């Protein structure tokens, strides 16, 4: 996309985006300051000594807006020395510090911290700082050519929007859930039952709908004019692009191919995602939390869904789209997508660990020319450890769950519903388990029967 551009031409191209970008950020903070000032919301953080001017939230927003307004002309200059950028040392550190393991474990840890301290993070002042930090990070990183190359690729732009929208809406939902949970602790009804007056749909709802439609149309037209839709070279069946990627919304599935064979990553697990989603209302017997935001009243359902959606769907898509380059190797956000980057792949099957590592023998192999039955027996013998482990996982574990950690659930749900839930949970957990086994033991397959394309 920026191929054939000199560095100066590239910076000019970015500058034409970054100038308006920082102005938008300045206006955003200015409007926030105006809102805080007019409504009297926010608080006084401290009083400046000597002059005695109170430093309020509105004042800080205004200061932030002025800061962005000063960045705007520098960023629009197109001069590398002036444009605000991420320091080279930081970029190096981020590149070196990231990898599939750090990324996956890091996002889980981040979400866990956000969840555990949600009462701190949902405070508007804190959320506003995080929001600004995210946008500033994006702006500062755009001057990096490799970063720009992946983020500004037309088909990747929706993912940037998705991440920002999800951050915003997750904040909205958590903010309200925290308030509702505090209210519930005091014995008060949720926010949603406060204003229970009925209003007429004309005009109160139809006007909202009309404004939404007009706004959305304007936004789409603006987007269509500002950013041409992707159109690459004409299709050629001989020129395989590297990397070859599915559409972005399926890249979580493609990322699973690192850990599973296509029949699992591309067929079984996606089907189970759909089945599992449909089964949610029939599994979740908890009557609380119907029609209002809450976390405490449905913590288990909340955590399972958030782990599945935010961690195993969204962050895998972000990983697959933005950080997976040629040969599906991992590349840091500021790293050049070098097609010749070689990563040692030295993965071992469980059967090899068992027969060769543990027992010090060779893998059981049927004598050549033996009958079908003999061959099958040898395969089953060879893979016995993995098969037993897998059967134990899917068959023995649910009853154990039912009489231990999930005893209360089992009593409420009955056998069939509980078994459905247990198996869906186990399938869902199979991905992180497989990831950890790969990272720690270089484990390739638990069951490896390439003779029948049955690798698990």
């Amino acid at each position: 996309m920026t191929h054939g551009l000199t560095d100066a031409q590239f910076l000019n191209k970015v500058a034409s985006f970054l100038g308006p970008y920082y102005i938008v950020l300045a206006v955003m903070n200015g409007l926030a300051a105006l809102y805080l000032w007019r409504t009297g919301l926010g608080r006084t953080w401290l009083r400046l000594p000597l002059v005695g001017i109170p430093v309020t939230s509105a004042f800080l927003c205004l200061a932030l807006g002025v800061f962005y307004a000063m960045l705007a002309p520098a960023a629009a200059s197109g001069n590398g020395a002036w444009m605000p950028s991420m320091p080279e040392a930081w970029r190096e550190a981020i590149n070196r510090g990231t990898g599939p393991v750090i990324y996956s474990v890091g996002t889980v840890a981040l979400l866990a911290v956000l969840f555990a301290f949600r009462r701190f993070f949902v405070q508007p002042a804190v959320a506003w700082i995080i929001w600004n930090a995210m946008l500033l990070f994006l702006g500062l990183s755009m001057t990096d050519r490799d970063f720009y190359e992946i983020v500004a690729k037309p088909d990747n732009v929706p993912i940037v929007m998705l991440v920002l929208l999800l951050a915003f809406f997750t904040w909205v939902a958590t903010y309200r859930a925290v308030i509702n949970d505090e209210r519930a602790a005091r014995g008060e009804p949720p926010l949603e039952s406060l204003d229970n007056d009925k209003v007429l749909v004309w005009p109160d709802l139809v006007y909202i709908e009309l404004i939404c439609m007009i706004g959305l149309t304007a936004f789409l037209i603006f987007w269509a004019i500002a950013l041409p839709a992707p159109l690459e070279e004409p299709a050629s069946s001989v020129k395989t692009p590297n990397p070859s990627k599915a559409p972005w919304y399926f890249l979580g599935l493609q990322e699973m191919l690192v850990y599973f064979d296509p029949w699992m990553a591309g067929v079984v697990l996606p089907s189970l995602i759909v089945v599992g989603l449909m089964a949610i209302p029939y599994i979740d017997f908890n009557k609380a939390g119907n029609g209002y935001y809450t976390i405490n009243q449905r913590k288990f359902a909340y955590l399972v869904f958030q782990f599945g959606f935010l961690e195993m769907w969204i962050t895998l898509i972000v990983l697959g789209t933005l950080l997976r380059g040629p040969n599906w190797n991992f590349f840091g956000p500021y790293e050049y997508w070098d097609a010749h980057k070689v990563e040692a792949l030295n993965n071992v099957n469980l059967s090899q660990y068992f027969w060769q590592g543990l027992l010090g023998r060779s893998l059981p192999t049927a004598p050549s020319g033996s009958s079908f039955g003999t061959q099958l027996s040898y395969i089953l013998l060879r893979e016995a450890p993995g098969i037993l482990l897998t059967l134990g996982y899917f068959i023995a574990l649910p009853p154990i769950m039912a009489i231990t950690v999930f005893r209360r659930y089992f009593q409420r749900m009955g056998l069939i519903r509980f078994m459905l839930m247990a198996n869906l949970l186990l399938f869902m957990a199979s991905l992180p388990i497989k990831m950890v086994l790969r990272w720690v033991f270089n484990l390739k397959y638990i069951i490896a029967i390439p003779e029948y394309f049955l690798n698990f």
Partner: protein
Amino acid sequence: MPLGDTIRESQIWKSIFRHPMPVDRRNRIVVMLTNFFLHLHPVSIRKQGIALSYTWCMGGVTFFLFLVETVTGVLLMFYYRPTVEWAYTDIQALRDVTSLGILREIHRWGAHAMVITVWLHMYRVFLTGSYKPPREFNWVIGVILLLLTLLLSFTGYLLPWDQLAVWAITVGSNMARATPVLGHEGPLQQLLSVGGVDMITNASDARFALLGAREVGEETLNRFYILHCIAIPLGVSLLLAIHFWRVRKDGGISGPL
């Protein structure tokens, strides 16, 4: 009489709109009951049920995007020819020479936006527990609609017939090759062999059914075009109608009991 009143008093106007202008309380109720496009709505609604901080408006936005996609899609169909010979050049011409070629940009970005908004809609419905009784089945319909949205986007992805399109569909549909039992490289596909003859080959498996050929080619383009323009939108339209109807029948927009 002012011109506006003359028009509104005319026989033509009255024959089209079955209600007077909704300027007073009575007629604001009448308009909701007698206008086809408005009768999807209830007459009155709880204030919290329409608060943007509660609903995020994402279901409505998704439906509106579906309408945008339908209108721009129909207009694009007048121009675009789904053949290997013409597909790419038609899209290229839409970008470079055709007036209103921007319709293609709107269609493409609208499709991406629709995928995002339908996820956000599901996210909101989950976080407010709105799938709980009596709305369980409407959630199921919603999941199918979400899946169909992804398939609409996936089938449309192929139509520009550029490198991005063909290889994305190749990568995506390669998965079908590994379908258990029904894919020719899937586990247990040997089960379906009769007298030593494989029933499941690369010319009869799940991937072949999807592509209409062994590789992504002319037949695939045709197949995806029809799925994209006719088959899936018909299914979506039917399910949308049921989805909306069930929202009303299951007690309107969710809220605390």
